[in-house]
Protein backbone atom coordinates (compact mmCIF):
# COMPACT_ATOMS: atom_id res chain seq x y z
CA UNK A 1 0.00 0.00 0.00
CA UNK A 2 1.60 3.21 -1.12
CA UNK A 3 0.75 6.89 -1.22
CA UNK A 4 2.70 9.44 -3.28
CA UNK A 5 4.69 10.60 -0.28
CA UNK A 6 5.60 7.27 1.30
CA UNK A 7 5.11 3.53 1.46
CA UNK A 8 2.44 3.00 4.10
CA UNK A 9 2.45 -0.69 4.65
CA UNK A 10 3.59 -3.86 2.97
CA UNK A 11 3.34 -7.45 4.04
CA UNK A 12 1.49 -10.75 3.66
CA UNK A 13 -2.28 -10.90 3.70
CA UNK A 14 -4.98 -13.56 3.46
CA UNK A 15 -7.61 -11.27 2.04
CA UNK A 16 -7.95 -7.66 1.04
CA UNK A 17 -11.31 -5.89 1.07
CA UNK A 18 -11.61 -2.53 -0.65
CA UNK A 19 -14.35 -0.35 -2.03
CA UNK A 20 -14.21 0.49 -5.72
CA UNK A 21 -16.61 2.70 -7.63
CA UNK A 22 -18.50 -0.48 -8.58
CA UNK A 23 -18.85 -1.67 -5.01
CA UNK A 24 -16.98 -3.69 -2.44
CA UNK A 25 -14.42 -6.10 -3.74
CA UNK A 26 -12.75 -8.83 -1.75
CA UNK A 27 -9.52 -10.27 -3.03
CA UNK A 28 -8.19 -13.63 -1.97
CA UNK A 29 -5.14 -15.53 -3.16
CA UNK A 30 -5.20 -16.59 -6.83
CA UNK A 31 -7.53 -13.76 -7.75
CA UNK A 32 -7.56 -12.81 -11.41
CA UNK A 33 -5.65 -9.64 -12.30
CA UNK A 34 -7.81 -6.58 -11.68
CA UNK A 35 -7.34 -2.86 -11.95
CA UNK A 36 -9.96 -0.88 -10.07
CA UNK A 37 -10.66 2.72 -9.18
CA UNK A 38 -11.18 3.26 -5.45
CA UNK A 39 -13.85 5.57 -4.09
CA UNK A 40 -13.21 8.75 -2.19
CA UNK A 41 -13.41 8.10 1.54
CA UNK A 42 -13.29 4.31 1.46
CA UNK A 43 -12.13 1.89 4.08
CA UNK A 44 -9.63 -0.82 3.25
CA UNK A 45 -9.36 -3.95 5.31
CA UNK A 46 -6.46 -6.36 5.14
CA UNK A 47 -7.13 -9.68 6.83
CA UNK A 48 -3.93 -11.22 8.01
CA UNK A 49 -3.44 -14.85 8.88
CA UNK A 50 -1.75 -16.24 11.98
CA UNK A 51 -4.07 -14.60 14.48
CA UNK A 52 -2.80 -11.12 13.77
CA UNK A 53 -5.41 -8.38 13.95
CA UNK A 54 -6.89 -6.98 10.76
CA UNK A 55 -5.23 -3.93 9.27
CA UNK A 56 -7.70 -1.17 8.60
CA UNK A 57 -6.94 2.01 6.72
CA UNK A 58 -8.83 5.00 5.39
CA UNK A 59 -8.11 5.41 1.69
CA UNK A 60 -9.16 8.50 -0.22
CA UNK A 61 -9.17 7.93 -3.94
CA UNK A 62 -6.64 5.93 -5.87
CA UNK A 63 -6.34 2.52 -7.45
CA UNK A 64 -6.22 -1.12 -6.67
CA UNK A 65 -4.19 -3.41 -8.81
CA UNK A 66 -3.96 -7.16 -8.50
CA UNK A 67 -1.44 -9.24 -10.39
CA UNK A 68 0.58 -12.36 -9.66
CA UNK A 69 -0.91 -12.76 -6.21
CA UNK A 70 0.13 -9.27 -5.28
CA UNK A 71 -2.25 -6.51 -4.37
CA UNK A 72 -1.06 -2.93 -4.73
CA UNK A 73 -3.09 -0.09 -3.35
CA UNK A 74 -2.14 3.25 -4.86
CA UNK A 75 -3.84 5.75 -2.63
CA UNK A 76 -3.79 9.47 -3.16
CA UNK A 77 -4.09 9.91 0.58
CA UNK A 78 -4.17 7.06 3.06
CA UNK A 79 -4.00 6.67 6.77
CA UNK A 80 -3.75 3.54 8.88
CA UNK A 81 -6.52 3.16 11.44
CA UNK A 82 -3.96 3.13 14.22
CA UNK A 83 -2.58 6.48 13.04
CA UNK A 84 -5.90 8.30 12.99
CA UNK A 85 -6.32 11.06 15.52
CA UNK A 86 -9.92 10.30 16.53
CA UNK A 87 -10.61 13.61 18.23
CA UNK A 88 -9.39 15.58 15.25
CA UNK A 89 -11.31 13.47 12.77
CA UNK A 90 -14.48 13.93 14.83
CA UNK A 91 -13.90 17.65 14.87
CA UNK A 92 -13.38 17.69 11.11
CA UNK A 93 -16.58 15.70 10.61
CA UNK A 94 -18.62 18.09 12.76
CA UNK A 95 -17.24 21.09 10.95
CA UNK A 96 -17.82 19.58 7.51
CA UNK A 97 -21.36 18.54 8.40
CA UNK A 98 -22.14 22.02 9.65
CA UNK A 99 -21.00 23.54 6.36
CA UNK A 100 -22.95 20.97 4.37
CA UNK A 101 -26.11 21.87 6.30
CA UNK A 102 -25.48 25.54 5.72
CA UNK A 103 -24.88 25.08 2.01
CA UNK A 104 -26.15 21.96 0.27
CA UNK A 105 -24.10 22.71 -2.84
CA UNK A 106 -20.82 22.74 -0.96
CA UNK A 107 -19.08 19.80 -2.65
CA UNK A 108 -15.79 20.38 -0.83
CA UNK A 109 -17.41 20.10 2.55
CA UNK A 110 -19.33 16.99 1.50
CA UNK A 111 -16.09 15.34 0.40
CA UNK A 112 -14.44 16.43 3.62
CA UNK A 113 -17.26 14.84 5.64
CA UNK A 114 -16.84 11.63 3.65
CA UNK A 115 -13.13 11.55 4.34
CA UNK A 116 -13.59 12.23 8.04
CA UNK A 117 -16.16 9.42 8.26
CA UNK A 118 -13.77 7.02 6.54
CA UNK A 119 -11.04 7.95 8.96
CA UNK A 120 -13.28 7.36 11.94
CA UNK A 121 -14.45 4.03 10.56
CA UNK A 122 -10.85 2.99 9.98
CA UNK A 123 -10.09 3.85 13.58
CA UNK A 124 -12.91 1.55 14.68
CA UNK A 125 -15.37 4.25 15.73
CA UNK A 126 -19.10 4.02 15.05
CA UNK A 127 -20.37 6.74 12.74
CA UNK A 128 -23.86 7.32 11.45
Amino acid sequence: MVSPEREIWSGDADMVIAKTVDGEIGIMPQHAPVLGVLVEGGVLTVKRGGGEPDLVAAVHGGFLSVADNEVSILAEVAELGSEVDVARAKNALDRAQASVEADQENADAAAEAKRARARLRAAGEEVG
Partner: protein
Amino acid sequence: MGAQLRLLRRRIKSVKSTAKITRAQELIASSRIVKAQQRMQAAVPYEREITRAVTGVVSNSSSVDHPLTVAKENPRRAGVLIVTSDRGFCGGFNANILREAEALAGLLRGRGVEPVPYVVGRKGITWHSFRGREMGGQWGGFSDNPSYADAKEIANTLITAFSAEDGIDEIHVVSTEFVSMLTQEVAVKRVLPLEVVETTEKPETPLPYFEFEPTAGDVLDSLLPRYVESRIFSTLLQSAASEHAARRRAMKSATDNANELIRVFTMQMNQARQAEITQEISEIVGGANALADAAAGKE
Protein backbone atom coordinates in the same frame (compact mmCIF):
# COMPACT_ATOMS: atom_id res chain seq x y z
CA MET B 1 47.25 53.45 13.79
CA GLY B 2 47.69 54.12 10.09
CA ALA B 3 44.79 54.52 7.72
CA GLN B 4 45.71 51.45 5.68
CA LEU B 5 45.85 49.27 8.75
CA ARG B 6 42.42 50.42 9.90
CA LEU B 7 40.98 49.77 6.42
CA LEU B 8 42.34 46.23 6.33
CA ARG B 9 41.04 45.48 9.84
CA ARG B 10 37.59 46.61 8.77
CA ARG B 11 37.62 44.46 5.64
CA ILE B 12 38.76 41.38 7.54
CA LYS B 13 35.92 41.86 10.01
CA SER B 14 33.33 42.12 7.25
CA VAL B 15 34.67 39.13 5.31
CA LYS B 16 34.69 37.09 8.51
CA SER B 17 31.01 37.77 9.13
CA THR B 18 30.19 36.89 5.51
CA ALA B 19 32.09 33.63 5.90
CA LYS B 20 30.04 32.85 9.00
CA ILE B 21 26.81 33.33 7.08
CA THR B 22 27.86 31.26 4.06
CA ARG B 23 29.18 28.53 6.32
CA ALA B 24 25.84 28.37 8.14
CA GLN B 25 23.99 28.23 4.81
CA GLU B 26 26.26 25.43 3.68
CA LEU B 27 25.52 23.38 6.79
CA ILE B 28 21.78 23.97 6.51
CA ALA B 29 21.82 22.93 2.85
CA SER B 30 23.79 19.74 3.59
CA SER B 31 21.31 18.66 6.24
CA ARG B 32 18.39 19.38 3.92
CA ILE B 33 19.84 17.37 1.02
CA VAL B 34 19.59 14.26 3.14
CA LYS B 35 15.97 14.98 3.94
CA ALA B 36 15.16 15.77 0.32
CA GLN B 37 16.83 12.54 -0.77
CA GLN B 38 14.77 10.59 1.74
CA ARG B 39 11.60 12.13 0.34
CA MET B 40 12.73 11.18 -3.16
CA GLN B 41 13.22 7.61 -1.98
CA ALA B 42 9.85 7.56 -0.23
CA ALA B 43 8.09 8.56 -3.43
CA VAL B 44 9.66 5.77 -5.46
CA PRO B 45 7.26 2.91 -4.51
CA TYR B 46 4.20 4.88 -5.60
CA GLU B 47 5.81 5.89 -8.85
CA ARG B 48 6.84 2.32 -9.57
CA GLU B 49 3.37 0.97 -8.85
CA ILE B 50 1.56 3.58 -10.91
CA THR B 51 3.94 3.06 -13.83
CA ARG B 52 3.24 -0.65 -13.62
CA ALA B 53 -0.48 -0.04 -13.57
CA VAL B 54 -0.34 2.29 -16.57
CA THR B 55 1.82 -0.16 -18.46
CA GLY B 56 -0.64 -2.88 -17.55
CA VAL B 57 -3.62 -1.00 -18.93
CA VAL B 58 -1.86 0.12 -22.06
CA SER B 59 -0.46 -3.30 -22.92
CA ASN B 60 -3.91 -4.81 -22.48
CA SER B 61 -5.98 -2.55 -24.59
CA SER B 62 -3.97 -2.30 -27.77
CA SER B 63 -5.84 0.73 -28.97
CA VAL B 64 -5.23 3.30 -26.28
CA ASP B 65 -7.21 6.23 -27.48
CA HIS B 66 -7.14 8.64 -24.64
CA PRO B 67 -6.97 12.42 -25.16
CA LEU B 68 -3.85 12.53 -23.00
CA THR B 69 -1.90 10.03 -25.10
CA VAL B 70 -2.79 11.21 -28.58
CA ALA B 71 -0.55 13.79 -30.20
CA LYS B 72 -2.53 16.64 -31.68
CA GLU B 73 -2.16 17.42 -35.33
CA ASN B 74 -0.49 20.72 -36.13
CA PRO B 75 0.48 21.77 -32.62
CA ARG B 76 0.37 25.55 -32.25
CA ARG B 77 1.07 26.25 -28.60
CA ALA B 78 3.26 24.31 -26.19
CA GLY B 79 3.32 24.64 -22.43
CA VAL B 80 6.76 24.66 -20.86
CA LEU B 81 6.89 23.93 -17.15
CA ILE B 82 10.04 25.54 -15.75
CA VAL B 83 11.05 24.39 -12.29
CA THR B 84 13.29 26.90 -10.50
CA SER B 85 13.98 27.66 -6.85
CA ASP B 86 12.42 30.21 -4.52
CA ARG B 87 15.65 31.52 -3.10
CA GLY B 88 18.96 32.44 -4.63
CA PHE B 89 22.35 31.62 -3.08
CA CYS B 90 22.59 28.48 -5.14
CA GLY B 91 25.12 29.25 -7.84
CA GLY B 92 24.10 28.66 -11.41
CA PHE B 93 21.10 26.52 -10.51
CA ASN B 94 18.43 28.88 -11.83
CA ALA B 95 20.55 30.36 -14.58
CA ASN B 96 21.15 26.90 -16.05
CA ILE B 97 17.47 26.06 -16.06
CA LEU B 98 16.41 29.36 -17.58
CA ARG B 99 19.05 29.08 -20.28
CA GLU B 100 17.86 25.59 -21.15
CA ALA B 101 14.25 26.84 -21.15
CA GLU B 102 15.19 29.63 -23.55
CA ALA B 103 16.90 27.13 -25.84
CA LEU B 104 13.78 24.95 -25.81
CA ALA B 105 11.59 27.97 -26.56
CA GLY B 106 13.79 28.76 -29.57
CA LEU B 107 13.51 25.18 -30.75
CA LEU B 108 9.71 25.23 -30.42
CA ARG B 109 9.43 28.53 -32.27
CA GLY B 110 11.52 27.03 -35.05
CA ARG B 111 8.87 24.34 -35.40
CA GLY B 112 6.21 27.02 -35.54
CA VAL B 113 4.94 26.33 -32.04
CA GLU B 114 4.40 29.17 -29.59
CA PRO B 115 5.82 28.35 -26.14
CA VAL B 116 3.77 29.26 -23.06
CA PRO B 117 5.82 29.28 -19.85
CA TYR B 118 4.41 27.78 -16.65
CA VAL B 119 6.82 28.67 -13.88
CA VAL B 120 7.51 27.10 -10.49
CA GLY B 121 9.71 28.98 -8.01
CA ARG B 122 9.94 32.69 -7.23
CA LYS B 123 13.27 33.13 -9.03
CA GLY B 124 11.79 31.98 -12.31
CA ILE B 125 8.66 34.04 -11.77
CA THR B 126 10.60 37.27 -11.22
CA TRP B 127 12.81 36.43 -14.18
CA HIS B 128 9.76 36.20 -16.43
CA SER B 129 7.82 39.12 -15.02
CA PHE B 130 10.91 41.35 -15.18
CA ARG B 131 11.07 40.68 -18.91
CA GLY B 132 7.37 41.29 -19.27
CA ARG B 133 6.70 37.74 -20.48
CA GLU B 134 3.26 36.38 -19.98
CA MET B 135 3.05 33.18 -17.97
CA GLY B 136 0.42 30.49 -18.30
CA GLY B 137 0.70 29.79 -14.59
CA GLN B 138 2.99 30.45 -11.68
CA TRP B 139 3.57 28.77 -8.35
CA GLY B 140 6.00 29.70 -5.63
CA GLY B 141 6.82 29.11 -2.00
CA PHE B 142 7.41 25.38 -1.93
CA SER B 143 10.43 24.77 -4.13
CA ASP B 144 12.63 23.46 -1.32
CA ASN B 145 9.99 21.20 0.18
CA PRO B 146 7.21 20.35 -2.28
CA SER B 147 4.12 18.43 -1.19
CA TYR B 148 1.96 16.16 -3.30
CA ALA B 149 -0.84 18.72 -3.17
CA ASP B 150 1.44 21.21 -4.95
CA ALA B 151 2.20 18.69 -7.69
CA LYS B 152 -1.50 17.96 -8.01
CA GLU B 153 -2.37 21.61 -8.43
CA ILE B 154 0.26 22.05 -11.14
CA ALA B 155 -0.81 18.87 -12.93
CA ASN B 156 -4.47 19.94 -12.81
CA THR B 157 -3.72 23.30 -14.36
CA LEU B 158 -1.62 21.70 -17.08
CA ILE B 159 -4.11 18.97 -17.88
CA THR B 160 -6.98 21.45 -17.98
CA ALA B 161 -5.05 23.66 -20.39
CA PHE B 162 -4.12 20.60 -22.43
CA SER B 163 -7.69 19.38 -22.70
CA ALA B 164 -9.14 22.80 -23.54
CA GLU B 165 -10.05 23.50 -27.17
CA ASP B 166 -7.72 26.45 -27.67
CA GLY B 167 -5.31 25.59 -24.88
CA ILE B 168 -1.89 24.09 -25.31
CA ASP B 169 -1.06 21.15 -27.52
CA GLU B 170 1.96 19.69 -25.80
CA ILE B 171 3.68 20.06 -22.45
CA HIS B 172 7.41 20.00 -21.79
CA VAL B 173 9.18 20.13 -18.46
CA VAL B 174 12.53 21.82 -17.87
CA SER B 175 13.95 20.86 -14.49
CA THR B 176 17.07 19.73 -12.72
CA GLU B 177 17.57 16.03 -12.20
CA PHE B 178 19.37 14.83 -9.13
CA VAL B 179 21.98 12.39 -10.37
CA SER B 180 24.15 12.33 -7.29
CA MET B 181 25.31 14.63 -4.50
CA LEU B 182 27.86 16.09 -6.89
CA THR B 183 26.07 15.96 -10.22
CA GLN B 184 22.78 17.54 -11.12
CA GLU B 185 21.71 17.89 -14.69
CA VAL B 186 19.19 20.09 -16.38
CA ALA B 187 16.81 17.88 -18.31
CA VAL B 188 14.07 18.62 -20.80
CA LYS B 189 11.25 16.11 -21.03
CA ARG B 190 7.93 15.94 -22.76
CA VAL B 191 5.14 15.06 -20.37
CA LEU B 192 2.06 15.36 -22.56
CA PRO B 193 0.98 13.81 -24.81
CA LEU B 194 2.09 10.85 -22.80
CA GLU B 195 4.44 8.36 -24.25
CA VAL B 196 3.82 5.18 -22.38
CA VAL B 197 6.99 3.32 -23.15
CA GLU B 198 8.43 2.39 -19.84
CA THR B 199 10.42 -0.80 -20.08
CA THR B 200 12.47 -1.54 -23.15
CA GLU B 201 13.40 -5.09 -22.23
CA LYS B 202 10.69 -7.71 -22.42
CA PRO B 203 9.34 -8.71 -19.02
CA GLU B 204 10.13 -12.31 -18.15
CA THR B 205 6.50 -13.26 -17.84
CA PRO B 206 3.91 -11.81 -20.16
CA LEU B 207 1.91 -9.12 -18.43
CA PRO B 208 -1.28 -10.58 -17.01
CA TYR B 209 -4.59 -9.88 -18.64
CA PHE B 210 -6.32 -7.38 -16.39
CA GLU B 211 -9.96 -7.10 -15.57
CA PHE B 212 -11.16 -3.59 -15.01
CA GLU B 213 -13.43 -2.10 -12.41
CA PRO B 214 -15.54 -0.52 -13.84
CA THR B 215 -14.14 -0.36 -17.41
CA ALA B 216 -10.76 0.09 -19.06
CA GLY B 217 -11.69 3.57 -20.23
CA ASP B 218 -12.78 4.73 -16.78
CA VAL B 219 -9.67 3.33 -15.18
CA LEU B 220 -7.51 5.08 -17.74
CA ASP B 221 -9.46 8.29 -17.25
CA SER B 222 -8.49 8.47 -13.61
CA LEU B 223 -5.17 6.67 -13.89
CA LEU B 224 -3.46 8.92 -16.44
CA PRO B 225 -3.92 12.21 -14.57
CA ARG B 226 -2.55 10.51 -11.43
CA TYR B 227 0.39 9.32 -13.50
CA VAL B 228 1.08 12.86 -14.69
CA GLU B 229 0.80 14.09 -11.10
CA SER B 230 3.26 11.53 -9.91
CA ARG B 231 5.71 12.42 -12.68
CA ILE B 232 5.47 16.09 -11.76
CA PHE B 233 5.79 15.30 -8.07
CA SER B 234 8.98 13.37 -8.68
CA THR B 235 10.28 16.24 -10.82
CA LEU B 236 9.63 18.68 -7.98
CA LEU B 237 11.32 16.43 -5.44
CA GLN B 238 14.38 15.99 -7.62
CA SER B 239 14.55 19.70 -8.24
CA ALA B 240 14.35 20.36 -4.48
CA ALA B 241 17.21 17.95 -3.77
CA SER B 242 19.24 19.48 -6.59
CA GLU B 243 18.57 22.97 -5.28
CA HIS B 244 19.97 22.05 -1.88
CA ALA B 245 22.98 20.35 -3.45
CA ALA B 246 23.65 23.38 -5.66
CA ARG B 247 23.29 25.71 -2.69
CA ARG B 248 25.65 23.62 -0.61
CA ARG B 249 28.27 23.70 -3.33
CA ALA B 250 27.88 27.44 -3.94
CA MET B 251 28.07 28.20 -0.25
CA LYS B 252 31.08 25.96 0.22
CA SER B 253 33.04 27.78 -2.47
CA ALA B 254 31.90 31.12 -1.03
CA THR B 255 33.20 30.10 2.39
CA ASP B 256 36.48 28.91 0.88
CA ASN B 257 36.83 32.20 -0.98
CA ALA B 258 36.16 34.20 2.15
CA ASN B 259 38.78 32.25 4.09
CA GLU B 260 41.31 32.83 1.33
CA LEU B 261 40.53 36.56 1.38
CA ILE B 262 40.93 36.67 5.16
CA ARG B 263 44.34 35.00 4.78
CA VAL B 264 45.51 37.54 2.17
CA PHE B 265 44.18 40.52 4.12
CA THR B 266 45.79 39.34 7.35
CA MET B 267 49.12 39.08 5.59
CA GLN B 268 48.73 42.57 4.11
CA MET B 269 47.68 43.89 7.49
CA ASN B 270 50.76 42.44 9.18
CA GLN B 271 52.98 43.90 6.47
CA ALA B 272 51.35 47.31 6.88
CA ARG B 273 51.80 47.15 10.66
CA GLN B 274 55.46 46.15 10.32
CA ALA B 275 56.08 48.93 7.78
CA GLU B 276 54.50 51.41 10.17
CA ILE B 277 56.72 50.28 13.06
CA THR B 278 59.83 50.40 10.89
CA GLN B 279 58.93 53.88 9.78
CA GLU B 280 58.33 55.02 13.34
CA ILE B 281 61.70 53.66 14.44
CA SER B 282 63.54 55.34 11.58
CA GLU B 283 61.69 58.57 12.35
CA ILE B 284 62.74 58.39 16.01
CA VAL B 285 66.30 57.52 15.09
CA GLY B 286 66.38 60.29 12.51
CA GLY B 287 64.92 62.75 14.99
CA ALA B 288 67.43 61.77 17.69
CA ASN B 289 70.31 62.09 15.22
CA ALA B 290 69.10 65.50 14.15
CA LEU B 291 68.87 66.59 17.78
CA ALA B 292 72.33 65.25 18.49
CA ASP B 293 73.73 67.02 15.40
CA ALA B 294 72.07 70.26 16.45
CA ALA B 295 73.52 69.97 19.98
CA ALA B 296 77.00 69.24 18.58
CA GLY B 297 76.77 72.30 16.27
CA LYS B 298 75.95 74.60 19.22
CA GLU B 299 79.00 73.69 21.24
